[in-house]
């Protein structure tokens, strides 16, 4: 049992547990916290796979910005615990088994899609520089496109959330 195997199981376990908590907890804030935990755990897993920068971004953007937005909105709307209502028929008879089936199949597929041989890139030290080069050379057009997407999203959010005078 090597060190990163241990770390994998620890943090993978944390991630799954937090995800379950996200579903079971009844108050949106608690769910949000659970999700943040998931993200942090995932960041560690990224580190384990040598994707340092992705890990950092994961924390900064996901946990640090997006989830803050969620928490902010929850606080703003002062959301209450969600009340019990019976599941909708479709959800009950369809959702549960299908979700399980889906998970199983996905797990099977990816398990087989990934050949067992360990990675060549595991030992790579500095991934940030090549990553940047790739992002700004090969993917520069999509990159700029995403910036436009963001811009549009900002405008949309503004227009939607503005209080009508």
């Amino acid at each position, binding site marked *: 049992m090597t060190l*990163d195997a241990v770390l994998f199981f620890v943090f*993978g376990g944390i991630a799954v547990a937090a995800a379950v908590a996200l579903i079971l907890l009844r108050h949106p804030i608690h*769910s949000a916290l659970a*999700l943040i935990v998931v993200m942090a755990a*995932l960041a560690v897993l990224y580190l384990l796979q040598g994707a340092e920068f*992705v890990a950092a971004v994961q924390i900064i*953007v996901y946990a640090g910005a997006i989830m803050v937005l*969620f928490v902010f909105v929850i606080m703003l709307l002062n959301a209450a615990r969600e009340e019990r209502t019976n599941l909708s028929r479709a959800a009950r008879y369809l959702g549960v088994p299908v979700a399980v089936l889906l998970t199983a199949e996905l797990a099977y597929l990816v398990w087989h899609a*990934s050949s067992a041989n360990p990675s060549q890139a595991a030992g790579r030290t500095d991934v940030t520089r090549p990553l940047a080069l790739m992002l700004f050379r090969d993917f520069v057009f999509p990159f700029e496109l995403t910036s436009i997407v963001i811009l549009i999203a900002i405008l949309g*959010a503004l227009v939607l959330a503005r209080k009508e005078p």
Partner: protein
Amino acid sequence: MPASWYLALSAILFGLGVVGFVFKRNIITIFMSIELMLNAVNLALVAFSRQLGELQGQVFVFFVIVVAAAEAAVGLAIILLIARNRQSLNVEDVDLLKL
């Protein structure tokens, strides 16, 4: 640590996201389950990129994160509107789309 383990983990997380998506009633929480699914996908992408020794996977993670940010902004704005207009965050109160 072979990539398949990471992939399996991501599949499980994705499944949990799906379950949350179907079962939660609070719109915000449903939205969060979607984020969970996105995260699962990111994990898969990173795992693949490590296994293939290619960085494209990580680049795509960036794009996913960007899109997630945009989606969060707009989605939360919409949720804000819903909450404002019908004083409730329960999806079952938002069902005007039926005939």
